[in-house]
């Protein structure tokens, strides 16, 4: 360690920062707005909850309900929507609880773990939504086939199933890819650092 010992001395002897901040400048800084990753995670998380739930405003619910009634699945839609709202509030609550627990006074590892956990809550909510959308598409398709079963030949039937399947996978896939990108950009540095720290624990 000879080389580093020498550098350590140099480090210890380094002069104090020349452009120190005055108490007034520190006061102003302390009261300014944070632009930390945690804050962005909170804002983007809230936005995701809002955007996902405002999608319903673009759908004419009365028209949609009529369609559902025609297909005989209005009960299914009604109950799953209630369940979806309960689940939404569960996720929102978890998200807020996890967010509140984030503290820079924790050790580095625990802090990173908590940030990642908070972010994962939103990711799980998005996953749940994608699953819900897929379920509705599948149920509607099945109900559609059921009501029009007599008018369809097997070729048409296969075509409907096949095209619905492709469309579902495509839509969900694109949303998921976009989401992974956003998630990746936000947490890339943090994930890398967390792995770097956690790597040690698995070695010993």
């Amino acid at each position, binding site marked *: 360690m000879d080389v580093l010992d020498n550098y350590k001395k140099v480090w210890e002897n380094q*002069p104090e920062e020349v452009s120190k901040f005055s108490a007034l400048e520190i006061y102003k800084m302390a009261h300014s707005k944070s632009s930390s990753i945690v804050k962005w995670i909170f804002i983007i998380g809230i936005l995701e909850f809002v955007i996902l739930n405002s999608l319903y405003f673009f759908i004419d619910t009365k028209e949609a309900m009529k369609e559902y009634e025609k297909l005989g699945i209005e009960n299914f839609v009604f109950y799953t929507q209630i369940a979806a709202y309960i689940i939404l509030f569960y996720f929102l609550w978890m998200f807020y609880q996890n967010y509140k627990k984030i*503290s820079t006074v924790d050790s580095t590892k625990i802090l990173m773990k908590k940030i990642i956990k908070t972010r994962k809550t939103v990711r799980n909510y998005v996953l749940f939504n994608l699953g819900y959308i897929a379920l509705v598409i599948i149920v509607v398709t099945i109900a559609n086939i059921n009501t029009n079963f007599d008018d369809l030949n097997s070729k048409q039937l296969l075509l409907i199933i096949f095209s619905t399947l492709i469309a579902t996978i495509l839509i969900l896939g694109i949303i998921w890819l976009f989401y992974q990108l956003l998630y990746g950009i936000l947490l890339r540095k943090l994930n890398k650092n967390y792995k770097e720290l956690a790597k040690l624990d698995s070695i010993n």
Partner: protein
Amino acid sequence: MQKDLETKFLSDFEQNQNIAHKICRIYTTNKDAHNDLFQEITIQLWKNYPKFRGDSKFSTWMYRVALNTAISLYRKSTKRVRTQDINDVAFKIKSNDYDDTEERQLKALYEAIHKLNDIDKALIFLYLEDKPYKEISETLGISSVNARVKMNRAKEKLKNILNP
């Protein structure tokens, strides 16, 4: 009450602000980023100050909050090190009562540290600040054994960069 707390915080932080400057110099490579990170550290310190009970030294507590801010909270990536930015750093630490060789060595040290990853930067910083392993492991949240292993690797990396 709030006023007292504020006054105490300002005096505590003003005395110890050099710690934050050193961390900013390690994690950023230009003046704007330095001040950005310094501001975020200040925000985090003030936000958590009411919970600081004084059972540890202010500086010890500050190391943790400031390093956490630099590693996990700070948004900007410090991946690219531009030569002009390094001169910026060198300019900041230039001083008359500091001899030439030492100045060159200090500049080389900062340049080498900039090439390390965020975790290694923290380890090396705590080593240079002469912190005991117990404090290092508690700050990072890893066991002492792990801290030692990791520290030795970080030192090796640093030595390789300094003397290729």
